[in-house]
């Protein structure tokens, strides 16, 4: 049975990856997960300089999911290289570094500083709803997305994956812009902007007022968007949004995703990624599927 998938020439032992921001760089999960079993670790977003993130409360539970407004707190690319990438180099898994920034120059600075490292690919975060400058501004207009994608692609020595926001009128316009500008792949969906109000205190639950919604409640929206993008572009798609089980992951692959990311599920079940990997193998065996690539986009 083959579970290997390939994206932009990078081969993954299986299609299961962490979703950025839910797994750190894997360090915090080594008590629960053998990182060697993962298709890839997609790291927490890193910027060219340290970012303090947003005030607390930063997280809130909602029905069937959660809101977060962390604000991309990170130690900056230099510490990340020395600590996180050095740590990940000890494991037999692919490393996708999620890169964030406030200006085009910030992204390029971070990418250039990462070009000589063991990172296999970059996922470019132009869709975080929780930072006021940059980020989301690049991901909600097709021409802005085209422009930044083209510039990052030029600066990058590694394949790039543009991570798309679902908070747009037509996500396929974004997918097409990323593809046209030279992105090697796209990943979707980032979180859906949400809000929660504490009716006793008459206040927003999150200090940031709004936050990005994740968790199983958003899965049908994500599957729909992955399917739409798969019809619109030829570049590979990494699908994510509420994956809790192997069945969820297979649904995304049938909609057209070559690989999948497991996010909020890591918080709810620290062994979620291993459970998804095992469950996919069980599914393939049960249905006598020789090669996982057979199911990618099989539902038209």
């Amino acid at each position, binding site marked *: 049975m083959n579970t290997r998938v390939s994206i932009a020439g990078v081969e993954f032992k299986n299609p299961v990856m962490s979703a950025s921001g839910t797994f750190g760089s894997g360090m915090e*999960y080594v008590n629960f997960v053998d990182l060697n079993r993962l298709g890839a670790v997609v790291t927490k977003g890193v910027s060219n300089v340290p970012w*303090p993130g947003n005030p607390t409360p930063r997280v809130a539970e909602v029905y069937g999911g*959660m809101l*977060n407004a962390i604000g991309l707190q990170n130690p900056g690319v230099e*510490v990340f290289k020395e600590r996180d990438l050095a740590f990940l180099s000890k494991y037999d898994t692919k490393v996708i570094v999620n890169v964030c920034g406030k200006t085009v120059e910030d992204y390029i600075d971070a990418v250039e500083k990462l070009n000589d490292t063991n990172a296999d690919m970059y996922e470019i975060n132009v869709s975080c709803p929780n930072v006021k400058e940059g980020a989301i501004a690049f991901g909600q207009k097709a021409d802005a997305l085209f422009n930044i994608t083209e510039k990052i692609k030029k600066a990058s020595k590694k394949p790039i994956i543009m991570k798309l926001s679902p908070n747009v009128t037509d996500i396929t316009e974004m997918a097409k812009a990323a593809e046209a500008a030279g992105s090697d792949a796209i990943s979707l969906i980032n979180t859906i902007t949400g809000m929660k109000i504490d009716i006793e205190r008459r206040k927003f639950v999150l200090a940031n007022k709004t936050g990005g919604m994740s*968790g199983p409640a958003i899965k049908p929206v994500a599957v729909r968007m992955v399917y739409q993008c798969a019809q619109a572009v030829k570049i590979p798609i990494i699908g994510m949004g509420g994956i809790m089980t192997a069945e969820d992951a297979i649904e995304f692959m049938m909609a057209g995703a070559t690989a999948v990311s497991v996010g909020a599920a890591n*918080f709810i079940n620290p062994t979620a990624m291993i459970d998804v990997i095992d469950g996919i193998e069980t599914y393939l065996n049960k249905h006598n599927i020789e090669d996982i690539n057979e199911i990618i986009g099989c539902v038209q």
Partner: protein
Amino acid sequence: MFYKKIDEGKVISQEEISKDIFSLIIKNEGAKYANAGQFVGVYPKDKSTLLMRPISICETDTDKGTTRLVYRIAGKGTKEFSTLKEGDSVKLLANLGNGFPVDEVKGKCIVLMGGGIGIPPMLGTAKALAGEDVHTVLGYRNSDTFLSDEFLKYSKVYIASEDGSVGVKGNVIDAIKACTNLKPDVIMACGPMPMLRGIKKYAEENNIKAYISLEERMACGVGACLGCVCKTVHKDEHSHVNNTRICTEGPVFDATEVDI
């Protein structure tokens, strides 16, 4: 001792010790390794409530291998926990965070302070310091002084109540100020943020070392999500910004290190 695992626990008993406050005893593997002041994540079974609920460990019984949690019903998750009965299974993420540095303070005059639902972890701390020069100051809203009798086994107990119905009228700071003979070297405390701010100020003014236990909304409990941070005076070694993770570097901090 370090222990961080998913524990499949079994409920030994549960009782409501005060209105909406429950004492839950669970048999779980991690119980023998817990330190006073650590916490566990308790997973609700209802799948609409996904995240674990961080609850401080009140005390453990290493011989029996049990963890005691004393919590207040605050929402859907804790409401569900309040229905747990003897023999029920309960999934825990145990043991999280670092506890109070009990070994570092032995031989000193130690004052433990707990306010409201911050009182439970101070009981395990008092137990860990049994035989030392320990004084406990407990703050309540009224005469419903849950757990206070249990502290008498390990320490002298002073009580403050907001309505003045028991002990000193006011808060824990008012109570400690009323004990003019008490000259603490160290304070260890858990309670609502205004109380902890008051203790931080009191300790700094009186040159007392203070350790305070903080809480914040969190998702993962293991240091990955960066949801539960607290501002720090100096750059944090892990984050490289002035933010530290309550679940991992805390929940207990040297009061002078945090900006609350």
